[in-house]
């Protein structure tokens, strides 16, 4: 288990740092279309912010913010957004992952619809990567002895 020692410098600094990290992660994600970045990178930074909570405070504090079940649901929802976008394209009558068909439901022309389609799947990647990275980290660092336990 992570030791339950609180250091004033570390906890204050990380309290200060974490919101910025999360905001930066969203920036990296949102600017993936025009500058280096994207879902994977953003998700990693977001996971790092939560990992900082675990390191700076203790494990219970992190658990209070992110329960195990919530993490699992985030994992599944992220991948589901990705694959669901692909399915939506099939349902709208085109091939799998052909975002241009999304122009039927989005107020955009086919080219712009691809832009939004990419944004959607990047969102899915972001959520999955964040949740999975955090989940792997928590599992490894606690050797699986979570307080709550996934029944």
């Amino acid at each position, binding site marked *: 288990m992570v030791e339950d020692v609180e250091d004033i410098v570390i906890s204050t600094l990380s309290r200060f740092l974490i919101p910025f990290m999360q905001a930066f992660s969203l920036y990296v994600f949102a600017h993936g279309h025009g500058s280096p970045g994207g879902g994977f990178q953003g998700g990693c930074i977001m996971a790092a912010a939560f990992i900082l909570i675990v390191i700076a405070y203790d494990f219970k504090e992190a658990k209070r913010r992110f329960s195990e079940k919530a993490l699992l649901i985030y994992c599944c929802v992220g991948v589901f957004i*990705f694959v669901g976008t692909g399915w939506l394209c099939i349902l709208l009558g085109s091939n799998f992952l052909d975002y241009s068909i999304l122009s039927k439901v989005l107020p955009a022309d086919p080219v712009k619809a691809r832009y939004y389609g990419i944004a959607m799947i990047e969102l899915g990647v972001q959520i999955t990567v964040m949740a999975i990275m955090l989940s792997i980290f928590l599992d*490894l660092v606690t050797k699986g002895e979570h307080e709550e336990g996934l029944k």
Partner: protein
Amino acid sequence: MKKILAVISIIITGALLVYGVKDFPKWADPNQPASLHVSPRYIEHALDETAVPNLVTAVLGDYRGYDTMFETAVIFTAGIVVMMLLRRPRKW
């Protein structure tokens, strides 16, 4: 014994790798095949076809979006494997 086997396999692999490099294009050659066959279309038309200026995002999300889907599935698989191996049931 294990070390000898390792050294032998490394010599064989190394010889193969060096032999393979023989006919490679030069580093950073603008006329290497990798820069001439498929990628020019991505560079020249990605902006018109997907409206995304970052070419990596365009290729990642759209042209080869299917790879990316499985990339996400790979990491999902890894997460589930770690969960399955390490997690224990609730104690109470």
